């Protein structure tokens, strides 16, 4: 699928230019949309859930101090850091980078790529494929029976 490749290419470009070791796009409720980078040793499914939770909690904090939301969240470690920014209301860009990368650079690239990512996400959403709903449900239900009958 062309648009899917375009999306990965865009994230790869952002990763390469910024020098980050990983880039993820996640939904507001913690679902992973796509990822690129050296993330073999990172539990990205859990990371997506936690980052979304963290961002949501920050939104509540923002509300308490009279802001609608904080659009950027930065988690600084000793060697590794995470830069989280909103792409759209429902989607977030997560950039993981090492200590030797400058935060300002990461921030600039995240900002530069945000509209491009948003546009590609919009194209992906528009490119919905036809799926046979009934067949999908029937097979999914039989898998549920299978998995939850084991044990």
């Amino acid at each position, binding site marked *: 699928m062309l648009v899917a490749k375009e999306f990965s290419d865009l994230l790869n470009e952002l990763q390469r230019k910024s020098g980050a070791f990983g880039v993820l796009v996640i*939904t*507001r409720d913690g*679902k992973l*949309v796509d990822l690129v980078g050296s993330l073999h040793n990172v*539990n990205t499914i*859990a990371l997506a859930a936690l980052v979304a939770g963290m961002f949501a909690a920050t939104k509540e904090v923002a509300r308490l101090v009279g802001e609608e939301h904080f659009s950027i969240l930065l988690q600084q470690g000793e060697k590794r850091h995470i830069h989280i920014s909103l792409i759209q209301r429902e989607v977030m860009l997560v950039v993981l980078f090492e200590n030797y990368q400058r935060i300002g650079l990461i921030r600039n690239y995240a900002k530069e790529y945000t509209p491009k990512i948003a546009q590609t996400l919009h194209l992906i959403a528009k490119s919905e494929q036809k799926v046979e709903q009934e067949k999908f449900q029937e097979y999914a239900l039989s898998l549920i029976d299978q*998995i*939850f009958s084991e044990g």
Partner: protein
Amino acid sequence: MSFVNFAKKEVILKVVYYGPAECGKTTNLLFLHKTISEKYHGEILLLDTHNERTIFFDFFPIYLGEVEGFKVKFQLYTVPGQSYYYASRKLVLDGADGIVFVIDSEKQRLDENFESWRDMMNNLKFYKISPKEIPIVLQYNKRDLPEIIDIGTVEKYLVLNGIPVFEACAIKGEGVFPTIKEVCKRVIERFKFGG
């Protein structure tokens, strides 16, 4: 809110275990984690305090497999039950496709179940989700205790007609599978591509 990733060909669905403090939400997840074949699940994530009370949420991903070219995944969450974690509960409920409401069957904790249900209804309202639009399954947990409420008590008081009900003793694994099976099936039955 189901999520279809047409680029990666994935369908991700979220099920939340809700209920009062110490009713057995995490115990349900732990049993599933222990029992389901490893090929069907990822790592369990427990965010708890020093005395093992959930502080933010627990998280457990289940991989159903490939259906009509799409990888189907369920992501199971629990909410923290303690009343002062109300903000966390609200956040975790965001985007839920199905709910297991775990009832503490112990007689003296009946009111806490009602309070938790009302809290859940308020949070659903916040996300503009009608309780009629989202599959909810009731699980009466801790059926092995001596002083327990009768099945039907909660439904009668809260006027929940036709809601699926399961008896469980999650610590022994009893009733855990029928509950998750029912909620997942209902979520799939409601799920539609493109909305």
